[in-house]
């Protein structure tokens, strides 16, 4: 036994594959990027379709109108809706063409053959693009109304295409989780966010509950979360659960925004509630057509008020 122990102690760990260094580099890249962003706020809910993306967009507009520099990270990888709501649905990053292999199940050798023999698209040839080794290490966010900087999966994929990954992701949730976590890391680290006062992160609905921790691990210094709920009892109990969940993770709950307040009846008066947003047909049209509501619209005013309260909560 002691023998084994001494053997183990004498084994020195060598990072021959230089994997550790790369992982550290990845994290440093994110840290460096996030250091330029003053406030990072999650917009989340336990339930789908309650208005997270709506709140994210309206709050971003309100903050931008207060002359803050605002970015939105659409962290809903499978159902990105921010670009549509901001009239950016036809925009794309056009990174794609290098992803040539269309078939699944990449296995070590077979995949390598396919890749090495894939025809090289002319515009992707080495040296054709700026940057070391013919590749860019960062990409500019798409600029939306009022200068809001947006990054979304929708800029990478064709509009109606569902997001599917190569490999055994469809069969093993662990892979899927790892891929999505890595993708979120790239959204944080590879987008040239620049100096921002606010980065709002629109999270996917509750079922994809592993996203908050995946994001949180990259930004433990984030300010906190806004929880969106509708007035219905179910949605509220769900939000109660997400609140507990956020708190368990160490995420501060900044406040609750009650959406569709006129449809479900208002929740009891509560200092946590930063605002109540009624159903508004003009808001619906605005989101649908991607044209922001004017500054003086009642809904814009409600969000101006929410933004004001939020500012008081932040350091």
């Amino acid at each position, binding site marked *: 036994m002691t023998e084994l122990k001494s053997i183990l102690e004498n084994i020195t760990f060598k990072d021959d594959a230089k994997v550790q260094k790369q992982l550290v580099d990845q994290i440093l890249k994110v840290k460096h990027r996030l250091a330029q962003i003053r406030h990072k706020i999650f917009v989340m809910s336990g339930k789908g379709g309650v208005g997270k993306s709506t709140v994210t967009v309206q709050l971003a507009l309100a903050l931008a109108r207060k002359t803050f520099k605002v970015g939105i990270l659409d962290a809903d990888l499978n159902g990105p809706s921010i670009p549509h709501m901001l009239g950016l649905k036809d925009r794309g*990053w056009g*990174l794609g063409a*290098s992803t040539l292999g269309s078939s699944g199940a990449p296995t070590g050798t*077979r995949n390598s053959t396919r*890749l090495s023999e894939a025809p090289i698209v002319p515009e992707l040839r080495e040296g054709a693009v700026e940057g070391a080794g013919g590749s860019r290490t960062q*990409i500019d966010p798409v600029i939306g109304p009022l200068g809001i900087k947006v990054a979304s999966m929708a800029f*990478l994929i064709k509009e109606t295409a569902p997001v599917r990954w190569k490999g055994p992701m469809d069969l093993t949730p662990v892979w899927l989780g790892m891929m999505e976590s890595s993708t979120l890391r790239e959204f944080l680290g590879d987008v040239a966010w620049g100096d921002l006062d606010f980065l709002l992160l629109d999270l996917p609905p509750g079922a994809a509950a592993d996203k908050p921790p995946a994001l949180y691990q990259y930004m433990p210094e984030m300010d906190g979360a806004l929880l969106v709920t509708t007035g219905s009892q179910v949605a509220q109990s769900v939000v109660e659960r997400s609140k507990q969940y956020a708190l368990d993770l160490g995420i501060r709950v900044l406040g609750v925004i009650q959406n569709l307040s006129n449809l479900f009846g208002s929740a009891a008066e509560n200092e946590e509630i930063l605002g109540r947003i009624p159903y508004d047909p003009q808001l619906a049209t605005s989101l649908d057509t991607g044209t922001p509501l004017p500054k003086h619209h009642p809904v814009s005013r409600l969000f101006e008020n929410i933004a004001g309260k939020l500012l008081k909560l932040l350091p």
Partner: protein
Amino acid sequence: MGFQKVEETGGIGLGITFHCPQCQATFSMVTNPGETQMVQALGVTLGGRETQPAAFELTQSMLKTGVRGEGLGVSKNPQAQDEKSVKDTLKESMGKCPFANTVADMTAKADAVQQKSGGQEILWTDGALRRLENVPLPVRSFAKQMIETMAREQGKPKVDEILMDEAKTRFM
């Protein structure tokens, strides 16, 4: 303890056997495509890299979905190059190294299969998918790949229950 042999396992991995002439003990090590995939999913290159990774390198290379391609063009696929050189290196060392020979064999076989099936994605019938669900989760993706390899070998675009039966007799 000395190296004894290297062989192909299931068409997607290598089994490497070591043997001790004194105590007659035999050890086998099997490479694991799952781990390769894990390394891929972390966005790292084994052996380190000289240049910084391109923006969205991982997301781009792992997305199966149709990707928008408007020619803003960020990068060539960095992996493509690495692996080409691996292949060249393999060719050069053929004949000398048992690993190189086995891997070259597997590569050639995979190439042939690839050509036969035109690199098509293999589809699954509902029945076959249901049968696949009976395979224990930890090895399911592995099984899926092996069966798809079989389908490609036979030039079949689709995995059906008949092929599942064949696979069962072949692998079990």
